[in-house]
């Protein structure tokens, strides 16, 4: 009998929705993933994000006198958990940071009715640039399409016609995130006469890519461009080294430039390039402040604060913090809500002067968003692995707006049509 009573109690756990009461605080949750197959890339980013917010809270007393509650909700990169996190946080949150293309797609339609802006820095999907259709979604400072356009410029030495007759393998995760840049590459291949060879890596094959690299060995592409994530990147780099694919012909998107992955290779990875909209600046004034207020105070979990990903996390939180500040200025209120933050995100203006004030000179390129450009198009740099660390390898590159704008507009229009009736902001002028 006894065990029935215990079980009955266990089974009748009451359903209790989570509600949190907050006072004089801005609630900006982060749908983090520190577990699961993608955790290796997630952890340093989340650390950087959290540390920046801790710094603002401890050094400046928050933003505009209001502290930021930067709580994490763990998703493990699973869409299902992500949606649960979104539902859990949305009653008080002023922002959603979904951290996965799958979660972004899922919550995007709902943010319209819930009036919570999505902030997906450098991810989400590229058509989000069109702020007339995606009124509540922001992906500053650069989109995947812009990133791949820059990669194409870098490997062609600035003139895409140099690629004519060449073969480019596009190694990607077989997942919405991985397939995102394919339309852009197809458009570029058609226009400039090079051959595109998409090579998918299924999630179960992430750590076993020998088939993909055998195919690369057979096809001998002139360049391999990688849209990879999580455990896929480290494996791809090791296979490249093993099959003796020349590293200087191997280029990755910004999520495929994780220091830890390349440290596994060390010298052998010399020459590998990754496009990046952020550059680590170990000597930036903000790093000293972080050392003093956060790391020195034992409030950080970070291991390598000079890695590309950690510092990118700082930049991401900076973008959010600046948007909050802008929103506070526009509305004259300290405790802003979701719709106010949207105005902040749509009117961001990160200038060189502002970056200098923040002590973050050179960590990201200056950019400004507008109602018709939710990406901001900051541009990015090429980084090169020198055997020990990533070093800057190019001047600031810019995506080819003439090529991307029509694609963005068409994809956004299709999205609005598929989801009709979809609200479109007619007050805003189209970009092209």
């Amino acid at each position, binding site marked *: *009998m006894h*065990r*029935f009573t215990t*079980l*009955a109690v266990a*089974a009748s*756990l009451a*359903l*209790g*929705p*989570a509600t*949190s009461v907050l006072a004089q605080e801005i609630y900006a949750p982060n749908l*983090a993933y*520190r*577990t699961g197959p993608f955790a290796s890339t997630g952890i340093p980013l989340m650390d950087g994000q959290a540390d920046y917010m801790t710094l603002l809270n401890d050094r400046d007393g928050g933003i505009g006198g209001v502290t930021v509650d930067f*709580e*994490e*909700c*763990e998703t*493990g990169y699973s*869409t*299902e*958990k992500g*949606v*649960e996190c979104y*539902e*859990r946080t949305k*009653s008080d949150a002023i922002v959603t940071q979904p951290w996965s*293309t*799958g979660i972004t*797609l*899922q919550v*995007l*339609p*709902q943010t*319209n*009715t819930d009036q919570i802006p999505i902030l997906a820095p450098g991810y989400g*999907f590229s*058509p989000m640039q069109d702020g007339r259709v995606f009124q509540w979604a922001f992906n500053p400072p650069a989109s995947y399409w812009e990133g791949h356009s820059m990669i194409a410029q870098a490997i062609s030495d600035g003139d895409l016609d140099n690629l004519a007759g060449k073969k480019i393998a596009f190694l990607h995760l*077989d*997942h*919405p995130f991985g*397939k*995102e840049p*394919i*339309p852009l590459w197809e458009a570029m291949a058609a226009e400039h006469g090079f051959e595109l060879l998409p090579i*998918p890596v*299924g*999630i*179960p094959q992430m750590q076993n890519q020998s088939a993909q690299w055998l195919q690369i060995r057979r096809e001998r592409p002139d360049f391999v461009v990688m849209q990879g994530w999580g455990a896929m990147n480290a494996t791809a780099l090791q296979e490249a080294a093993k099959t003796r694919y020349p590293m200087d012909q191997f280029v990755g998107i910004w999520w495929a430039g994780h220091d830890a992955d390349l440290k596994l290779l060390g010298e052998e990875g010399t020459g590998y390039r990754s496009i990046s909209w952020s550059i680590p600046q170990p000597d930036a004034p903000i790093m000293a402040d972080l050392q003093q207020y956060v790391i020195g105070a034992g409030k950080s979990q970070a291991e390598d604060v000079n890695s590309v990903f950690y510092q990118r996390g700082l930049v991401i939180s900076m973008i959010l913090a600046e948007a909050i500040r802008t929103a506070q200025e526009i509305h004259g209120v300290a405790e802003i809500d979701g719709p106010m933050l949207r105005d902040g995100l749509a009117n961001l203006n990160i200038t060189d002067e502002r970056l200098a004030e923040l002590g973050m000179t050179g960590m990201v390129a200056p950019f400004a968003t507008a109602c018709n450009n939710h990406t901001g198009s900051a541009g990015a740099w090429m980084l090169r692995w020198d055997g020990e660390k990533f070093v800057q390898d190019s001047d600031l590159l810019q995506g080819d707006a003439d090529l991307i704008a029509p694609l963005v507009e068409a*994809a956004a229009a299709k*999205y609005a049509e*598929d*989801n*009709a*009736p979809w609200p479109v902001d007619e007050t805003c002028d189209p970009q092209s």
Partner: protein
Amino acid sequence: MLYRIAGQFKTNYRADQALFPVSQDAWLLGLILICAWVAFPLTASEFTFQTLLIPILIYSLAALGLNILTGYAGQLSLGTGAFMGVGAYACYKLLTIFPWMNPVVAILLSGLFSAGIGVVFGIPSLRIKGFYLAIATLAAQFFLIWLFEKWAWLYNYNTSGAIQVPNVDMWGITIAGPLASSTTQYYVVLAIVTLITLLCINLTRGNLGRMWKATRDMDIAAELIGINLMKSKLMAFAVSSYIVGVAGALFVFLWRGAAEPNLFDITLSFQILFIAIIGGLGSILGNYLGAILIVGLPVVLNSLPELLGVEIKSATLEHLNIMIIGSLIVFFLIVEPHGLARLWGLIREKLIKWPFPH
């Protein structure tokens, strides 16, 4: 006292074999139905709808489908997730090709597609048995996910490769898509789930259900007493996949709102298998109990630190969650391998005798 059956006389076999030979069961069910149809919708918050009520119903339905196959007909399946995917993609195609179609009709029709595919992958069950049969459904699982990824026609050549649920109206009310309200979605799901559950209760008590049970208990013996194994097994695959397919269509259209092929991967299959096993194989009630536990527990666990005011890192919490769920699965299997439904059966038995157990 409450569950006393004294005084309830049955004067013919028909009455004895009725759905609720004990009137208190009927009362209890009535109470649950009133809760589900009236009390919950009036009191639930958006969060409760989206993370508890709707998913519990949908997962129960999927587990019910699996239970028909594994619990009643004894054929192990590890491909439930993929069959849900077939239902979801079929529904998506139906509604984008025929936008005028009534969405509930589309959802019910999409089950037919997964039933068809289920039968195809069920054919090996005529020859392969036990754990070896798991390979047939695993092949379905991995092959279908690959197909969802590669066959661009299925997702209307979207750039993202994911399907997005459009706004769908029925009789002037939006029931699916971003504009639909949770309450509407809940009622549609509840109606379909109630309907299918009712059908299943009767199906498993009837001729077909008895055929399945005979097949499960020993298929050679069943064949010897004149049961057509092919019919029995393939019907089980068809009925099971139909229900699972409908659950998949509901899963995407009335709950998630968007889906990528990966959503239907093997973890989903296992989750549903957990529900069916923890709930109790070969029982209808068990699916609901199992779903309440497996879907509800993580939500409750996640809310717990906040309710108790304990600071805990989200990652640690997630790790603890996984550990607790893993241990609970083992714990429940040890305590009652026949599942929560059997546990309820035992409690009911005791209640009937209470307070004079001897």
